[in-house]
């Protein structure tokens, strides 16, 4: 950013913080250095107006609470001020342990999209006199890496409460389908990110795995277009739908193979061919089909037919990879 503009913006903040009165645009133009001076020409007036509009928008975007109003009924035009109580971060004191917890928490975002926001929050806490020691060693190194290209636009739309449109493809869909959603939020559930919201075409709450969003989601229409349901617990919505449809799958595995399946399967005994019959539970049959296909000839699905077909489809595609 041009140094001139930064200087002007800092001066504007200081000037408006330093007064309880509303200050008119004309007064700001006359006192705060860096604005196009009033030489009576329309061109200069226009230039000032444009500049001032941009500056106000910039400050508001940063979270500066710029108020508009009139100090007295005799004022003929609106003025501006920044109420100190609304501008300043309230008093906060943290013990060493609490500050260490904050430092640890902020490391969750080290390589994720909210990393920038985490860093500026940390700097503000330090500027408020909190000594956050991020180097303090705790034998834990958590990390919440969103790593999803769709995260940022989805998060921003949920934050601003704007309607969202995107193409979505489940693993066995041939073509992605367009979805229109009121986004309530994004949630990480067992290491995967989901969008939770109201599906406008189905008029029901739905969850969407971010990795299945095709292309960049688009926010449509104005901000604050809807209210998420009061007290909605995003993780609960995902958990509820996650466990809603459990499938029982029975497979036959050759002896000594498919250890990964056996770790979580119920053994149903041996078959006549000395294979083991295993019962598995899943709420994501397509994902289980992926895993079953990777065991090749060691594992054969008995039922349900849906999973059997899904595995055969996968194997057929794999078999076509080389003549």
């Amino acid at each position, binding site marked *: *950013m041009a140094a001139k503009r*930064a200087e002007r913006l800092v*001066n504007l903040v*200081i*000037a408006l*913080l*330093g007064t309880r009165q509303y200050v008119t645009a004309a007064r700001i133009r006359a*006192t705060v250095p860096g604005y196009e001076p009033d030489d009576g020409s329309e061109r200069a007036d226009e230039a000032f107006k444009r500049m001032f509009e941009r500056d106000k928008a*910039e400050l508001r975007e940063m979270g500066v609470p710029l108020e508009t109003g009139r100090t007295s009924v005799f004022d003929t035009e609106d003025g501006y001020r920044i109420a100190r109580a609304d501008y*300043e*971060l*309230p008093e*906060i004191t943290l013990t060493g*342990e*609490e500050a260490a*917890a*904050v430092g640890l*928490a*902020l490391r*969750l975002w080290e*390589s994720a999209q*909210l990393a920038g926001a985490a860093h500026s929050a940390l*700097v503000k806490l330090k*500027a408020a006199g909190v000594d956050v020691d991020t180097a303090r060693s705790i*034998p*834990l190194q*958590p*990390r*919440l890496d969103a790593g999803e290209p769709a995260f940022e636009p989805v998060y921003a739309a949920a*934050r601003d409460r704007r309607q969202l449109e995107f193409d979505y493809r489940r693993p066995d869909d041939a073509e992605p389908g367009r979805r229109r959603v009121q986004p*309530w*939020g994004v*949630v990480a559930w*067992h*290491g995967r990110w989901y969008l939770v919201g109201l599906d406008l075409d189905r008029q029901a709450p739905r969850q969407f795995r971010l990795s*299945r969003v*095709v292309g960049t989601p688009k926010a449509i229409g104005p901000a604050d277009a809807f209210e998420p349901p009061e007290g909605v617990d995003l*993780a609960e919505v995902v958990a509820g739908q996650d466990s809603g449809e459990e499938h*029982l799958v*029975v497979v036959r595995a050759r002896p000594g193979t*498919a*250890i990964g399946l056996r*770790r979580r399967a119920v053994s149903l005994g041996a078959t006549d061919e000395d294979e083991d019959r295993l019962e598995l539970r899943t709420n994501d049959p397509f994902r289980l*089909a*992926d895993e079953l*296909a*990777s*065991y*090749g000839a060691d*594992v*054969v699905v008995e*039922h*349900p*037919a849906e999973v059997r077909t899904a595995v055969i*489809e996968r*194997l057929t*595609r*794999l*078999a*076509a990879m080389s003549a």
Partner: protein
Amino acid sequence: MSTPSTADRMTRLLTLVPYLRARPDGVPLAEAARDFGVPERQLRKDFELLWMCGLPGYGPGDLIDLSFEGDRVKVVFTAGMVRPLRLTTDEAVALIVALRTLLELPGLAERDAVSRALAKVSSAAGHAAERITPVAVSVDAREQALAVVREGLERKRALHLTYYVPTRDERTERTVDPMRLLLVDGKWYLEAWCRRAEGVRLFRLDRVDDVRVLDEPAAPPPQAHERDVEGGVYQPEPDAPVVRLRLAHQARWVAEYYPVEDAEPVDDPPGGLAVTLRTADLAWARRLVASLGGSALVDEPAELAEQVAAHAREALSRYTGDAQAAPSSAG
């Protein structure tokens, strides 16, 4: 409208004076640069700019005044910039969601401190915290191994693990010297020196089938260094043979999960991504490609494509010759 750097610099400029005010004895320039995450050179430019700013009147007594003593900088006159700006919604989300996530972690000794910090931060965030719902994080809290592993770490004892290795589909027994616990992408990992492999390894806790704390002390050798997991938990093998894959959309996560050297968008398959991986373990690559069920195509090596296809054909022959294929058995 504003580029990230514009907003970043403005936020920094508004925060610098309160930051110095909170440190009445001054602060070394290098430390301030570290705290703000910018080079010292940039901080000097910021100070020069702040020197030109102040209260209307802009006389000598109105301008922000900073003093340098040696390498320490302190603020002499703040021009009313006393406290930092409130947290934005994004900042409040980053902070509060992360603290809530920590609270969900089982066996966290610092739980009380996290909970108090969360209460204080939420109250300081005020209005910004009202719209905190857009992000939630749920961590798998069912790891029974976690408490035992933590005990080993705290008592500095070696651990005996029964560990499932998915890439070879086998169960292994090993003694390890624990180093630290990590939570990456919602999954817990134990980083430890593995005496069997004679190297530092990451063990995913949901693959630990059994763990015992041993009486002998944990003694990772000097060459046991913590790994940088910034790029993911899988380490690249720079000298290993090349595997080239074309990933369809639903397999693109592979490029984020495993270290890939190049990632080029391609039109075949539509919306696909061509990636280069390196691995000496062709059996691992075969399992990976097979588990992607056709949404990853093998460009190189030809041997890998042949193996994948041969395994799939063998498996298919079991289905075609399988009496259970009759619909009667379909539940």
